[in-house]
Structures are given as C-alpha cells and as structure tokens.
C-alpha cells in the first residue's frame, strides 16, 4: 500500500484514497499546434510510455480529498516517493537533474522556456 501526500491540501493516506493517473509530463501535441501534428507525434502521445527501473514521474489525483491532480516522483524499485508537487509545477531541481529519457528532454525545454519568459 503506497502512502501518498497531496501537495495541494496536505491530505495524507492510502493510495486507495487517491487515483493514479499514469506518466507525468506527457505533452499533448494538439493543444499547442492542432494543425501540424504528425501521425508519429500522436502515436507517441497516446501510446509510448517510459517505464524505467528507478526514478519515475507520475500523475495522481487527490480523489477522496480536495479532488486536485498533482505530480509525484517515485522510485519504482523501493516504491519510495521522492517528491510531491503541483500539477503545473516542475519537480525539484535535484530530481530534474536525475531524470532520464523523455523527462530529461521535457524538463530541459520547459526550463529553457521559463528562463526566456
């Protein structure tokens, strides 16, 4: 049983009081440019997920609490949660630095965007 803490309202409890929502930080291509989404972009968005041994970024909803979605970083081996953070946020810097695969690219592009802004 995973024990989860909601970063929005602080509710703390069993995973059954929450709802797991799969991989986090997946970009929906059509939101940004509905016209120029290639078949491959759409395929990757819908079906291609990262399944690492170790650090995993994922979405959760405080289903039996405040109802808000949020992010979590979890170690898939020990099941330890490394961080909980808001749905609009990026993970803490040390976890961004440790991220691999598509997350590393995503975080880098987000950080770049935000520093421009």
């Amino acid at each position, binding site marked *: 049983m*995973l024990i989860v803490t909601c970063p929005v309202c602080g509710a703390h409890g069993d995973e059954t009081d929450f709802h797991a929502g799969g991989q986090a930080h997946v970009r929906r291509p*059509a*939101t940004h440019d509905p*016209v120029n989404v290639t*078949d491959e972009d*759409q395929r990757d968005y819908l079906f291609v997920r990262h399944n690492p041994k170790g650090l995993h970024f994922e979405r959760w909803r405080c289903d039996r609490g405040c109802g808000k*979605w949020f992010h979590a970083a979890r170690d898939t*081996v020990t099941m330890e949660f490394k961080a909980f953070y808001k749905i609009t946020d990026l993970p803490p810097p040390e976890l961004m630095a440790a991220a691999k695969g598509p997350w590393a690219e995503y975080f880098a592009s987000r950080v770049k965007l935000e520093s421009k802004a």
Partner: protein
Amino acid sequence: MSSKPYRLGSGGRLIDRARKIHFSFDGKPMTGFAGDTVASAVLASGQRVFGRSFKYHRPRGVIGLGSEEMNALVGIGDGARHEPNLRATQVELHDGLMAVSQNRWPSLKFDIGAINNSVSRFLPGGFYYKTFMWPVSFWKHVYEPVIRRAAGLGRAPEGRDPDAYENIHVHCDVLVIGAGVAGLAAAEAAAATGSRVIIADENPRFGGLADISGGSIDSQSQADWAAAKAASLAAADNVHVLNRTSVVGHWHHNFLMLFERVADHDPALLAAGVPRHRLWKVRAQQVILATGSIERPIAFANNDRPGVMLASAARGMVERYGVAPGSEGIVFTNNDDAYQTAMVLKTAGVSVRVVDSRSRAEGALPAKAREMGIEVDAGSVISAVHTSFGGLNITDVKVAAYRKGQGRVIKEKKVPCDFVAMSGGWNPALHLWCHNGGKIRFDDALQSFRPERHHDAIRAVGAANGTFALPEILAEAYAAGEAAAKSIRKTKSAAVAVPAAIQADQKPMEAIWFAPATGKYNEGNKHFIDYQNDVTAADLELAQREGYESVEHTKRYTTFGMATDQGKTSNLNGLGVLSEATGRTIPEIGVTTFRPPYTPFSFGSIAGPLTKNLFLPIRRTPVYQWHADRNADFEPVGQWRRAYTYPGASEDKHASITREILSVRNKVGLLDASTLGKIEIKGPDAAEFLDRMYTNMFSTLKVGKCRYGLMMNELGFLSDDGVTVRLADDHFLMHTTSGGADRIAAWLEEWLQTEWTQYKVFVTPVTEQWAQFAIAGPKARDVLEKLEPDFDISHAALPHMSFVEGKLGAYPVRLFRISFSGELSYEVATPSNLGRGLWNEIVAAGAEFGLEPYGTEALHVLRAEKGYIVVGDETDGTTTPVDVGFDGLVSKKKADFIGKRSLEQPYLKGPDRKQLVGLLTEDPNEVLPDGAYAVRQVKDKPPMETIGQVTSSYKSPTLGRSIAMALIQNGRARMGETLSFPLPGGKVVKAKITDTVFYDKEGAKLNV
C-alpha cells in the same frame, strides 16, 4: 487410551489441571486440560499420528511447538464452522472442540494412499509434471480430480459461514511484531517515549520462547520477566496489545495485515456475536521485527516418523503442558541449545541421550548435561529410524560415527528409543523482512540468513536479527525501540535502562545438511526436507541433475518451500542439500521468494462484513421503494438498481414489456431516469471548454435550448453521450449516461486541471440532487397540463429540445423537452427528497390518460426502434462516431477537441471499419441473439471469418417483428445485402442490412 503414558505427574506452566476439557479427535472422545493445545492434549493421550502426508501418505506426527508446525494439520469444527488445515500446535482446547485428521482414507492407521510410499521410487521430484502430460483432454476431467483427491489438504466447510468477521484500519507509530523477550523490550522502550505502539503475537500468551530458553533477567526467570512486561504493556494507554494475532504480510510503506483470531478459542464469545476473526490493516511509521527464530530439522533417514520432533517442541511440551514426547528419547543436535531439551526431559524423568554431530561437545550446556548423567555421543548421527509395522511407532534408531563431510556410514550401533528430538540450529524468521524486498545475507557462524538492509522503516531485533545471546538481545531491542520512536518525533524522555541478564554461553554450531544413512542411498530411507510437500533430499538432487539449476526452478519443480508452510522449516535445509549437490555456496544458490501470508488466514477475515447485502454497494433512486412495492423486476446498471419492467399479477416479463412499450407509443408512459448523470458547468470559458470536450459545437447553443452531444476519449473512440442544456450564457447543465456520471465529471476536472488550466470554469456534479422522470407518449402534454405547470408548455413555447424552469403545482421543477423514445416526451427533474411525491402526482394525473410506468427494457426497445444508440451497446470502446454514423456530429470547424486528431489516424479510416447498420431477419419472428456474428462465408464448423456482430436485438411490438442493429464491416455500402449469422447448434439466421431507423423515419412524432 488413558492419559497415563505421556502426561507427566506434575509441571506444565500453561495448563490448569483442575479444569478438564472434553473434546474429540476423529470422533474419539478425549480429555485434556484448560491451556492445552490440540497437539499437547492428543499427545498426552498417547496418540502420535495426526495425519497423512501430502504425496506419500506417510503417517505424520507433531514436529513443532507453534506456527512452524507443518505436519500436524487438523480440521476443526463441523458443518459450516469447519476450518481445515489448522496447526494442531496452535489450536487451543475448549470443551466440545471437534478435531479431525486430514488426508487419510479410510483411517489414520490404515491408509490406502500409503501405497504411494511403497511405489515412491516411481514418484520422484517433478513426478506430476512428467506423468500427467498427455493427452491434453485428460487434464481437466481425469488427472486433476484424481490428483486433487489423492493429494489434498483439508476439506472446505459446508454451507454458509454463520459467523461475523471484521476489518479495521489502524495507524500507529511503532508496530512490534512478536512478543518474545526482544519484542517486549522494544515495545517497552518505544512506549516509554509516549509513542503509539501496537505489539502483536500469534500466541495466546506473550513471552515467545522465554519459558524454554533458560537464563534470567533482572534476577527473575525469563518467563516471569516477560509476563510482568506483558502485563504492564497491556495496561498502558498508548499501547495496544494483540495476542492470537499473526502478522501475515508486510507491504510497501509499512502497510501490514494482522490476522486476529478473536473468538476461535472460546465458543461463548462466538455465541455472543463477537467477530470470529478480525483483519487489522495497520499503517506503521516504524516496524520492529521481533519474530524470533525457527528451529531447523535435520535431514536424516526417515526423519518424518511420528515421534521425531524438534528439540524445542519436545521441551516445550514438557514445560508448558506437562506432556512427555515419549518414555525414552534421543536428542539429535548440532548445537548446544538442544542440550536444554535433554536436561528438561531428564528432570521430568524421561530417559534420554544426546547424539551430537559435532566432534566435540564441550560447551557449558553439554558439560551440565553430562553432570546430570546424560550420555552424549559426540561425532555421531542418527543413520536409521526403525518403526513398528506401518511406521506408526519408533522402536529404535541406529547411531553412527560421523565426521563432517563424510557421506557414508561407518560404525553403527542400535539404540532403543521411542522418540527423537532434533535440532539443526536456528533460523531467524525472516519471512516478513523479505515480503517487501528486504535484503538478507548469509551468516557463516549461524549457517543461516539474517537481515541486511531494508528500504522501509523496519528494524529486526533479537533472534530475528540473528542475535541469540540474551544480554545482546536486550541491549539491541531496547535500543531499537527507542530509536524507532525517536525517529518519528524527538522527545526528552529518558531511555529505559537495559536490565541485566544471565545465560549460559554457547559454543558454535556446525551445519549438517544431510546425515548419512544405513543402506544404499535413498532406498527406503527418505531424508525429508519439506515435510508438508513431501520433498526429500533426493528429490532436490534429482532436480539439479535434470537441469533445474536456479533455486526458483527447483522450487516449482519439486514444490519445495510452497503451500501453507512457505519454507519455514525447509528452506535452509533445502539450500544446504543443493549446496552440497552442486558445490556452490548457499549465498551463490540464493533463496526463493517468501510470499505473504506468513501463516494462512481466513477468507472470512478478508471479506470482513462485506458479504450478503453489503457485498456490493447498491444505489437506490428516490423512487426505489415505489418500484419495489409495484413488484418491479430490478436490473443492475452499474451499482444502481433500476426497474427493468413491472410485471402485473398475471403477466410474464415479456408481456409486461410489450404492454409498457405500446403504452408509450399509443398513450403515455413514465420512466424513472434519476440515475442519469447531471453536471453543472459554469464560467466565462464554459462554452469553449465544452467545445473541447464534445465532438460537436456547444458555443453556438442558445440559452434555454438543449443539444445532444458526443464525447470521445483521446483515442478517438466514443466514451459517452447525453443532452446538455444552456442555462445561461456562462452556465450549462450536462447530462451523461447513468454509468458515466462519476467518470465524466472526473474527466472534465482532469482536462481543466491538467491541460487547459487557463480556463475559468467550475464543474459541480449534481446527479443525486435531482429525481428525474421521463413522461413520454402522445398524451404526455395532457398529463403535464393536468399537473398545473406555471409555464407555457405549448409546442410553440416549448418545442423539441428546449428547457424551462418553473413549478408543477407545488413542485419546483426543471423541465426538458427531449426524447429517447421518438415520442413527444418531457424529462422533469425535481429535488430528490420531493421525487417520490412528484412521481405519485404524475401517476395520479396520468391515470385518465392511461399512463403506465415503464422500465429499462421498454426504454431500450423504444430507442432501438428509433435507431438511437446506447454507448456501451452499439459501441465497445473501439468504436468511433463515424462508425456509428455520426459523421455530422463531428465538427469540421473546431480546430481541436478531445479525440479529433486520432480520428485522422490511418488505422481509424478505410473501408474495413465496422459501421452501424440496421438488420431485418428474413423470418420476422426470429430474434437474433445479442452479439451474434455475421460471417463472410458459412462453413460446417468454426473457424469462420467474421465481418461484424449484432449490438442490439429486440422483438418490436410496435412493428410486430424483430429488429436489430449491428456493426458490420463497410456496412453502409452494403445496404440491402443479406448476411448470415451462424448460431451455436448449427442454425444459420439470415438478415438483410437496412437503415437503423425502423420507426417514424421523418421524426414527425417528435414535433407535435
């Protein structure tokens, strides 16, 4: 049999000789004392055989003292209260208790299955896999029943369980597992900080093995010290003590399940309604594992004969229950600890000698034993066990000289005896440590595994941690208890002083994995490793030779370490044998996975109270009772119970459904549609948001008007539909399907929160605020008029797909002119607590117009006659709006909405998609079964290539014939074609493809 031979004249710390208890074993009346277990009482009566073994049906007796027992499994109670496979060593005696042995037929003494033993050379490891392979058709009906009968454990109870069971969720700071000396010490230290502590132990009395371990704490016996600590913990406000409670599993984040046998030991409690078992679901901040250790058997020839038991069990029987395991015994050991057994037996007047596999036995305990006059054969093993006919009674053993590593027997002597107490050393009980991935390492001194590290907040102390010396156990346990508590919150409380302890020093043990035996290897001299699964050393060696090199493969091939026992006594001995067979070290071989539960627990405790009427939450609409009073047939729709039809006194369901349909078509009907999902959506961006959610456009909807909407998921597949009304510019009320209410509300929230976070939109589900009824049929307006609306309901003022809020008489209502039947129809919603009242008013007002309530089956036929789809019937999760002919509802104007881009993926286009069509069977009386397949070409037998399937099929009373809808490959291009539907049994139904609208194609009936 009298209780003479084995009940000692005095002693037995746990029994009360003043209270006799009457019970039965295999129907034979027996007596014991209060405090006895079934094992001790039956042994006291002189009977040693408790059951037959799993595969060979060899007679088996008691081996252990507690939960490690793997042989003496008994069934307790009769009828519905029968519980199989309980360990006789743990079942507390009470008056009237009925125990039966298992896996024997026809009797314990004479068992037909024992023939397996004489042919055992043909039953090697992997026997079942090798033999029962061909033909495949024999698996289910020949092999499986035969194997199950021959190799069963106990039988299941008969009838419905009469008892109550419970679950409870509890949180604590520190959970201490095991209430031996180490557990008590850790709990005391943790509790002293003010932490909330739970301490649980599987036995009725706390103290673990303190009473048979010698030594003293604070100048008291270990047992007295433990009793005093247990009492003070039980009295503490911040401690919850749980006896008769097994911690059966440890899961992520320190979630544990504790199985409490609340009332098994006392029929009076059960009679008073106390739950029989309670399953505790505990979330602990910190866990202390003080589960102690389990004594290892030794693999010597015929080490399973009744009368062979663990050394700790032998002395436990004497000390706790005043029961001697026999009159003349051998203690066979490889360590000093078992000498305590020899001394306890000697003191109790039982003749005993020690066989020690070590070449020198010179520790303090052996010295003391010799002083007491006990003979010791050092450098020796038991090489044979001889029994009377049938293996029931031991007559003597052979003792042979032994040097470590030696494979065959040299000097042998015959020693008469009637029991053997064996000790191959002690294994820390690591099961719970390992359930959730704790790492262990092999300790050379212990010749066993001990905890190494764990990613959860769990600490092992005492014997569970491989610490066996009493002073060290105490120091370690107090420190761990305090550290665990203080890791949660800092306190200033002073540490509890560690009490002084005295215990004899012990010299190192020497592992012995296999004792050489008289005669040719493995001929009639089985060395049992896993008693419960009848796995011998030879089986393990054979598995190695046959290539099962991984220990996990060996486990599955031979079944060693499986079943209820989970390798408690067998695991390490098995690894030892494998190690000697392969020349690899035990750490190289590795261990098999320990899986929950540690000991079996009841299904009743898992279900708790969620049985019968609580098995599944049942949802009732505000008019539920009216339906029930009208003898409605209920249909489950998700968790809802909806009225399916209302059969009259002399009607069958078919007749009542027909009547209800015709009533709507010709007069007027009333449907309880309260289960429909209802969601209020409001905000400046609400319209744009709905454009994103639906396939069609909602920003163009006028205030006061309704529009039917389709929703897809991101894959482009239909997920829900319903009518949405615009209450104000920035305010909508959405209807969803009954099953989609919660899902769609969550779906809307998800997109608002995660993707279009800039939208200012609030979403509030209000499904249950409203009771909602459909009044449908040509007379619907007449009924409405009779209900005194305070608004204009004329066709001009309130045309199809419009909405009005007002009052019907005294009742506040929201009125939607929408139709799912194709008739003039209104859906009227009123606050739920007024629902029953309004329903009654409508029924009364409708009487003169012939109004009849109709159920969900009539609803479905009515909509099918009109070709209206039901998401979930006409769609199956891989169906697009285009497939069902809703191209027109998929907006071409909107740049983006959920699922839009996926519809353009090549795999969702093309002529091979299945498309929704109508079907008319050639025989108008033939109703196709739901799901029937259309095939390209009919053949004598399957396989036949299918080209689609029936999604809805009914007998339409309106049309006087059958109608159906189906998803057919490229269906819309095949209008007029006749398809074949082969049914099970060989019949082939032919049906012509038509339009999906069977009734009132122009929709004239809607606009009146």
